[in-house]
């Protein structure tokens, strides 16, 4: 079997060139690959199209760091604090916005990635009818339902097939086979839609652990390009069974990013001030111990026996 285990640094350098379209934050509030967000910033990658329904502060960080040309999303901010200051600044008090926004609702992003995942030419939907989203984002087409005798309007959503989907899982083997549990957001659609998948695994396990429960596989290893062992890659977002949400960290980021200078200082401290995610974890130190989930709430036993 192919060994796909790489350092996060190498995986990002190899598979996220300038100008890529990248899914970062497919599970909405949990399981956000902040470790990859920071590595992208550290490597000075530019011109990204960042795709996510909701990515909490991750997109705001990338926008502030100048890595982003386009955002394809439904909500960009800081879930604890509300507005995302870097994101705001990219639009407000300017002749033209500093970034292009491909406005969506959560469901239209889901439909677009689903269409990309399943090779559909487009996805018809109804739930952004009436919204000005179809005005500010001209990529949608409004047409009539050809199966209805009434003049029933339908929105056609073009498919999204991102260059890379970066996803966090609780455990993976060295070939990229993996288990994910908790809500899934659009992670499976993103993985199936993307040309490449980079996995950040909290734990690397033997292949037989993954093979023991093939229903828990988020995306099969043969579709995974690289797997990186990055404990707490989700910090400060939560991950079921592994990490609690670091609410204070989000709050602090929100306060400090209120000014461009404050954001720069935050970035210097938390991104440029550490060599890699292992350095970041060292810096978090005892704080990470408090965030580690230590309780036990085990899934009921499940038997896959064949005879």
């Amino acid at each position: 079997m192919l060994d796909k285990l790489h350092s996060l640094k190498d995986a990002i350098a190899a598979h996220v060139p300038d100008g890529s379209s990248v899914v970062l934050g497919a599970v909405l509030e949990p399981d956000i690959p902040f470790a990859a967000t920071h590595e992208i910033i550290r490597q000075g990658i530019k011109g990204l199209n960042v795709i996510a329904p909701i990515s909490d502060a991750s997109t705001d960080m990338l926008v502030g760091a100048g890595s982003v040309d386009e955002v394809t999303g439904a909500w960009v901010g800081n879930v604890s604090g509300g507005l995302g200051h870097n994101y705001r600044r990219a639009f407000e008090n300017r002749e033209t916005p500093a970034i292009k926004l491909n406005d969506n609702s959560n469901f239209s992003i889901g439909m677009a990635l689903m269409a990309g995942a399943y090779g559909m030419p487009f996805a018809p939907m109804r739930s952004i009818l009436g919204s000005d989203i179809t005005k500010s984002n001209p990529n949608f087409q409004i047409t009539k339902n050809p199966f209805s005798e009434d003049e029933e309007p339908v929105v056609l959503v073009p498919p999204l097939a991102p260059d890379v989907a970066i996803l966090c899982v609780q455990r993976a083997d060295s070939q990229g086979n993996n288990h994910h549990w908790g809500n899934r957001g659009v992670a499976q659609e993103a993985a199936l839609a993307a040309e490449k998948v980079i996995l950040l695994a909290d734990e690397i396990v033997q292949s037989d652990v993954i093979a023991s429960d093939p229903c828990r596989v988020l995306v099969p290893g043969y579709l995974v390009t690289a797997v990186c062992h990055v404990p707490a890659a989700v910090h400060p977002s939560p991950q079921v069974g592994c990490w609690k949400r670091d609410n204070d960290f989000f709050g602090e980021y929100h306060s400090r990013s209120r000014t461009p200078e404050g954001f720069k200082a935050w970035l210097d401290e938390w991104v440029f001030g550490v060599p890699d995610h292992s350095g970041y974890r060292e810096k978090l130190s005892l704080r990470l111990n408090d965030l580690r989930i230590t309780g036990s709430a085990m899934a009921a036993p499940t038997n896959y026996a064949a005879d």
Partner: protein
Amino acid sequence: MADYSIQELMIISAAREIADGELVFVGMRLPITAYGVARLTHAPNAVGLFECGIARYAPAEDMLYTMGDPPNQLNAAWLSGLVPVMSQLQRGRVDAGFIGGAEVDRYGNINTSYIGDFTRPDVKLPGSGGAADIAAMSKRLLVIMNHEKKRLVEKVAYVTSPGYLSGGDSRARAGLKGGPSALITDRGILRPYGPDNEMHLASIHEGNTIEEIRENTGWNLKIQPKMIETPPPSPEEMAALHKIDKDGFWR
């Protein structure tokens, strides 16, 4: 002064909008608490849905900062994806959905995207998230906002989440059923009234006057003929709320 806070009254008013057995898209903060109160009082079989791909019966036992926090996942009714859960809206199964907003207008349209021209906005707000979908496809939309003149405006600059659009049958002509059923503020409750579907003052919270409310509304607010004073929380409702809000966050 009443022995409840205005936030507590808003939560309990919101809880009363949920009927037993209903499927409800629940947001964070006030709505999740309202859902919990409803479950403990008159709606023990209500089901809570969350955009990230979660369905729950009993609300999470611990305080949530986001819908995806681990306590909201533990012992959920279903952990799935955004599409399978949010599509229950488009499938026509969802009875009610809660959203908030920066601006709402006289036809219940909500803006959470742009203040000013969207090509060059004065203020860039976070955007729809799932709000547009919930507003378009829930059988009843429930909106919770603070009652300020700059928030309750004649016409929103940008419709993120459709209410009755330009009133009358314009929502139906856009291909949508449902629509806003209640706008719960810290001063009262507005509901659509008459063939024009304009939001009228339907219930007034204790301690407010019609004049004060009209002064704090950005359009010429009309009064529903059967306007009532918002019934104060019952002892049962308060007990349920205090059971959930152990630390008195909303007190």
